[in-house]
């Protein structure tokens, strides 16, 4: 039997997610709504002798969608065919703004879904100087009204017990009269089975995804015939409802005095200050990145050490042969490359979700909007761009709450330019190779170059946004309206939950691709098309009969690689990368790291026959790899393969090129379009190629 479906509906910042976590006791998972890309948070709770499925709908002020998140809400409640169509909606309100929640409640009821009303954060009622007459409110809404406080768990049990309540028929208070009545009557003929309000919603929205094309066309005709627009109807409804609800609840919710905003106002005087606001923001940003790197370093070392030991142990316990090689050098090395990033990503998201939970993130939007607008971005783009320093995959997902489709698209297109954690190992190796370890104005030159690369990422993101802004067409005017919620101490359940979601998303999502690629690479590198690979030993001994034992085995290894599938691929693309100053071995690195940048270092290690598990944190191993790479000669130019020119060229290539399959996959998912995914990949790799080419040709 199908579980009873309960949907939580409410404005942003009413503590809906805290409530969701309390109800489900974290028995939940994040999936996707069928066909589209928005995360669906779903949980389970056993009570009253059955199991309920609880859905946490995205926060919204109204059922008329202006962003992707809000479209989900409407589709879930209005489309009876949808899998997430609820048996009962729980409308979550907070004491401060009951009016807005009542409007949302009425909209849901008039669409035809049963609903109960919950006032969360009830402990703040007195502090906010409010009083509520619950009996009057229940009579007015025609449903059960409950109170909860998700932070301490008050009222949660009562709420779960109320999941079987099905309120009686709802009398619509909203009547489309006068000027819009005829249009609505025409529209009703199209939807004989829908409620009046549902039909009104169809009429007032330009794009309802689940009705037929024919119905959509007829709706456009009706709107044109009566000379009305959807926007006009939505505004009219907002005004009608607001005026009515304000009148109706005047003696239900009594405002004694306004106490609560003053604390927030005091904090805002500093945090939104025209000067100090920015100083504090950049200071926080600086501390954030410092923490991400310093806190994660010891954990990464620990993982590295133990993982290497684990790989050795596995290698020792398996019989030697290709299977053992595949497991240790292919699969385990691949997993190691993913796990190593987990601390950084977890810490980044811990700090970011703290900023969101406290309410500071909307202040950042307030401060930054003016500086991002000229580039065709939006204050809300700050969050994706900042998260992009960790990993572009969750960062692109964070662009969802940008209402304007054009600004959302541009934000997603430029976010991968930000220097993500996966670029760091490459930068570290390449900088150590080609940048002298001198000081410049008292700062280490190598550190300065690293900083420069981070700045380059930001500049590239902004400049390309500026260009894209000129090219991409927009049907909608850009606008920005958002609430600055009052400051709160973070709910740690929400924070830990969020960190887990994002980190495990990276671990399992990106991890799959990196792992698959590691295996493919291993196969390509360990098999060859002809007997030069299979009988490498014979060829090498014939060519160099007087080599010592050690040199011989090294020579055989690189001869094998040269004649493996991977080697042939590398040599195949050599003509393309030669103008950039790379040889076929670097070509292999580029091809293999197309799956994920971090693969580059591992591949280089294979190419220079050191075994896959080179540990870049381990000084001795790093020196071995570095000295191998340093002594490498590019056989086309006769110069060292990693000189200043080719090194800078390679750094630039990695700074710009779309070398990440996970990002490509997430772009396809989020934009729903191969076109924009392809444009982004071509744009990034194109810029990377041209820049690397120009710089190399100028510097060589």
């Amino acid at each position: 039997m199908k579980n009873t479906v309960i949907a939580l509906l409410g404005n942003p910042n009413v503590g809906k997610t805290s409530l969701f976590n309390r109800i489900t006791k974290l028995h939940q998972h994040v999936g996707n709504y069928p066909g589209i890309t928005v995360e669906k948070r779903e949980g389970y709770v056993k009570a009253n002798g059955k199991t309920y499925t609880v859905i946490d709908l995205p926060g919204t002020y109204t059922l008329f969608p202006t962003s992707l998140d809000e479209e989900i809400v409407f589709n879930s409640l209005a489309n009876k065919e949808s899998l997430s169509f609820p048996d009962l909606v729980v409308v979550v309100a907070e004491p401060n703004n009951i009016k807005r929640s009542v409007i949302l409640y009425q909209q849901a009821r008039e669409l035809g879904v049963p609903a109960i009303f919950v006032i969360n954060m009830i402990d703040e009622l007195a502090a906010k100087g409010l009083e509520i007459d619950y009996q009057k409110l229940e009579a007015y809404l025609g449903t059960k009204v409950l109170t909860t406080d998700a932070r301490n768990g008050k009222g949660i049990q009562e709420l779960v017990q109320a999941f079987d309540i099905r309120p009686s028929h709802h009398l619509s208070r909203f009547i489309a009269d006068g000027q819009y009545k005829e249009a609505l009557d025409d529209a009703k003929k199209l939807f004989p089975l829908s409620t009046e309000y549902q039909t009104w919603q169809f009429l007032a929205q330009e794009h309802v995804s689940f009705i037929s094309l024919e119905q959509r066309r007829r709706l456009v005709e009706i709107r044109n015939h009566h000379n009305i627009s959807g926007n006009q109807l939505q505004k009219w409804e907002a005004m009608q409802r607001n005026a009515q609800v304000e009148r109706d609840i005047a003696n239900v919710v009594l405002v004694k005095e306004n106490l609560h905003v003053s604390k927030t106002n005091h904090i805002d005087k500093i945090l939104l200050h025209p000067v100090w606001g920015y100083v504090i923001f950049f200071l926080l940003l600086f501390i954030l990145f410092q923490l991400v790197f310093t806190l994660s370093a010891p954990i990464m070392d620990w993982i590295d050490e133990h993982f290497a030991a684990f790989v050795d142990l596995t290698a020792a316990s398996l019989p030697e042969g290709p299977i053992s090689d595949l497991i240790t050098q292919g699969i385990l090395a691949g997993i190691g490359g993913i796990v190593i990033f987990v601390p950084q990503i977890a810490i980044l998201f811990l700090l970011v979700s703290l900023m969101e939970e406290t309410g500071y993130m909307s202040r950042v939007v307030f401060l930054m909007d003016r500086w991002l607008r000229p580039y065709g971005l939006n204050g809300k783009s700050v969050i994706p761009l900042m998260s992009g320093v960790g990993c572009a995959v969750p960062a692109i997902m964070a662009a969802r709450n940008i209402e304007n489709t054009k600004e959302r698209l541009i934000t997603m297109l430029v976010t991968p330019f930000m220097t993500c954690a996966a670029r760091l190992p490459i930068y570290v190796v390449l900088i150590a190779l080609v940048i002298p370890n001198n000081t410049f104005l008292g700062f280490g030159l190598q550190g300065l170059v690293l900083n420069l690369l981070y700045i380059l990422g930001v500049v590239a993101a902004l400049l390309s946004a500026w260009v894209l802004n000129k090219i991409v067409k927009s049907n909608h005017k850009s606008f920005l309206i958002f609430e600055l919620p009052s400051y709160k101490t973070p709910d740690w359940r929400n924070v830990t939950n969020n960190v887990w979601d994002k980190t495990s998303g990276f671990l399992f999502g990106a991890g799959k691709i990196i792992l698959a690629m590691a295996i493919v690479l291993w196969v390509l590198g360990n098999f060859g098309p002809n007997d030069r690979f299979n009988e490498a030993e014979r060829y090498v001994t014939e060519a160099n009969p007087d080599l010592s034992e050690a040199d011989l085995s090294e020579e055989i290894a690189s001869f094998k690689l040269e004649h493996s599938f991977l080697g042939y691929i590398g040599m195949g693309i050599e003509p393309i990368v030669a103008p950039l100053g790379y040889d076929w071995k670097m070509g292999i690195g580029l091809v293999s790291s197309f799956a994920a940048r971090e693969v580059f270092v591992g591949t280089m290690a294979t190419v220079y026959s050191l075994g896959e598990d080179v540990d870049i944190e381990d000084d001795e191993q790093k020196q071995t790899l570095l000295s191998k790479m340093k002594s490498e000669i590019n056989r086309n130019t006769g110069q060292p393969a990693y000189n200043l020119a080719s090194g800078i060229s390679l750094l630039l290539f990695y700074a710009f090129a779309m070398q990440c399959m996970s990002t490509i996959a997430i772009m396809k998912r989020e934009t729903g379009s191969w076109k924009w995914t392809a444009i982004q990949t071509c744009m990034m790799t194109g810029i990377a190629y041209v820049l690397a080419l120009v710089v190399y040709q100028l510097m060589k």
Partner: protein
Amino acid sequence: MQKSFTLDILKVGDVAKISELNATELPAKFFEMGLLPGCTIEVRHKAPFNGPIGLHLLGSNSLVAIRKSEAAHIFVER
């Protein structure tokens, strides 16, 4: 005497009542978030160099931020 201004010229600390919104320029979301004719607002914050404006809506007791360019389409009176 009541005078009509656009909201963007108000200074921090000014209190005014919204008299009219230019409905063709502003999306419905402004109405839905409580910026409606008759609603009293106080300008609480202004980001520098013509950045966003933070408005305290007295009726619904919430703080809402909009861009200056949008504030120019909202008419207020004192």
